[in-house]
């Protein structure tokens, strides 16, 4: 009990809770009793420590309060609810700047690319399919790019004729009958140019928009009919994976390309065409697709815009169908005799091309003003 009173006295003394008289008495006691003096010093230190801890705790509490108060007011910001945030949120907060930068770059790039694509791609039949005929604007661009403007002085296009589109065509009869795509002939007349640059006048015999095929006839005194064509036109017997090649005019000169048979149906299951994989460009439309024996198996018509190397070719059977249909009504068509046998089998590709290239023509369609 004594000790309790003593300790209480010490605490009162240290906390300035003593009256002057009592204080003087206590100080006297301290001087005379070393044990009490020691207790006072020790307790002072202890009280100081515990006092500091108390202050410290109070301050921490105040700081927490301040923090949540300011957070509520919106003066400070933690990107979400206080403290107990999920890892994802924390990661998001940490990387949101980087993410924002990356997203903007991606956005700008995407817009630039789509802008470029929209600018350079020709008007397509629909968003996914692109016709491979060339509008004449592109021809002009290509000519300019070559730096040599092709003179149209000796052209067989009438002087008041305006070029509208161009594509490729090939002979189906040595007498001068050609097949091309209907969409290539966006005009009232056409001239054809062979691989050596020789131009011939041609008339449009028939355009069948449904099958996207058209028949032309060269009517030109300079044209020397072929006694026979080197290739045949196959009606059937195509296998998946078969090696294919094509010749056409994506530019002013004849261009060779090769690929393979990808699918026996065309765009969205169209049974009148094939899907082939090769590189084709605007201007290839109407060009023949040969198998490795040099038989014509199809006519290049369009490609899928959303995928690379997906080109559609109309089955060569379609030519037979069209010719047969027209035979009854048109006497000119009756004269067409389609080549049934190929003389190219077993030949090297370069030799095959030499034989075939004279039969593949550049078609230039024009409108007379």
């Amino acid at each position, binding site marked *: 009990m004594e000790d309790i009173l003593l300790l209480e006295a010490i605490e009162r003394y240290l906390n300035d809770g003593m009256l002057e008289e009592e204080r003087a008495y206590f100080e006297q006691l301290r001087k005379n009793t070393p044990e009490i003096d020691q207790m006072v010093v020790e307790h002072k*230190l202890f009280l100081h*420590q*515990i006092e*500091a801890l108390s202050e410290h705790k109070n301050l921490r509490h105040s*700081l927490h*309060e301040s923090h949540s108060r300011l957070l509520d007011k919106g003066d400070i910001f933690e990107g979400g609810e206080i403290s107990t945030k999920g890892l994802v949120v924390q990661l998001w*907060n940490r990387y949101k700047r980087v993410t924002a930068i990356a997203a903007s770059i991606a956005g700008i790039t995407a817009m630039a690319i789509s802008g470029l694509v929209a600018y350079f791609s020709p008007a397509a039949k629909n968003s996914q399919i692109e016709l491979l005929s060339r509008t004449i604007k592109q021809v002009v661009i290509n000519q300019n790019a070559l730096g040599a403007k092709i003179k149209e002085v000796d052209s067989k296009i009438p002087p008041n004729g305006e070029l509208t589109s161009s594509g490729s065509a090939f002979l189906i009869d040595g007498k001068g009958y050609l097949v091309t795509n209907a969409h290539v002939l966006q005009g009232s007349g056409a001239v054809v140019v062979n691989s050596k640059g020789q131009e011939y006048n041609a008339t449009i015999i028939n355009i069948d928009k449904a099958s996207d095929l058209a028949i032309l006839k060269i009517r030109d005194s300079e044209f020397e009919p072929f006694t026979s064509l080197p290739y045949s036109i196959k009606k059937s017997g195509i296998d998946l994976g078969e090696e294919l090649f094509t010749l056409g005019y994506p530019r002013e000169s004849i261009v060779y390309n090769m690929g393979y048979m990808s699918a026996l149906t065309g765009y969205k299951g169209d049974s009148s065409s094939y899907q082939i994989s090769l590189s084709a460009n605007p201007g290839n439309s109407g060009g023949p697709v040969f198998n490795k024996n040099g038989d014509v198996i199809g006519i290049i018509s369009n490609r899928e815009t959303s995928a690379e190397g997906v080109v559609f070719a109309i089955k060569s059977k379609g030519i037979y169908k069209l010719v047969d249909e027209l035979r009854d009504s048109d006497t000119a068509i009756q004269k067409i005799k389609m080549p049934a046998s190929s003389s190219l089998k077993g030949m090297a590709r370069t030799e095959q091309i030499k034989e075939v290239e004279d039969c593949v023509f550049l078609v230039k369609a024009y409108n007379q003003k």
Partner: protein
Amino acid sequence: MKQEINEQILLRGLVNNDSKAIDAIYKENFNMVQAFILNNNGTYDDARDVFQEAMITLYEKAKSESFVLTCQIKTYVYSVCRRLWLKKLQQKGRFVAQSDGLEETVSVDEDLEIHEKRNADFVIMERAMSSLGEPCKSLLEAYYINKKGMTEISAEFGYTNADNAKNQKYKCLMRLKKLFFTQYNIGD
């Protein structure tokens, strides 16, 4: 000049645990520190902890009699936070470029040393307290930390009178002092 006076007022407020002053200092400085921590692999929680630690250091400094404010509060707080955070990153084994930012810094190593020593003392005290067990711990906390009166405490803890509570407090205090002084080395 005016700013200096303002800062003196704020610091006095901080020492007196005045919530308005704390809010003002907090608002003025927290966002800068948060940005620094977040840009250096820290989280929002890290930012809050580090900033509050710096506020406590500032409080201790402002409280000491020899205190002289040699720089702006902003500079001081930023310097402490920077030092604390870089230290923490080093402990985690992450190495960061120690390049100084655009912010001005002052040397705070001495203050932080004192602060750390103080924190260590608090740890000793708190550990001693928690090893006391109940009801001693709560009783002493109520009296010494929360500054409650003996009558209030005796009512709260269910003692029949304040003297009994005092008696109990005395016993607890003796045990606590013993525990504390076996850990705490004076002058160490």
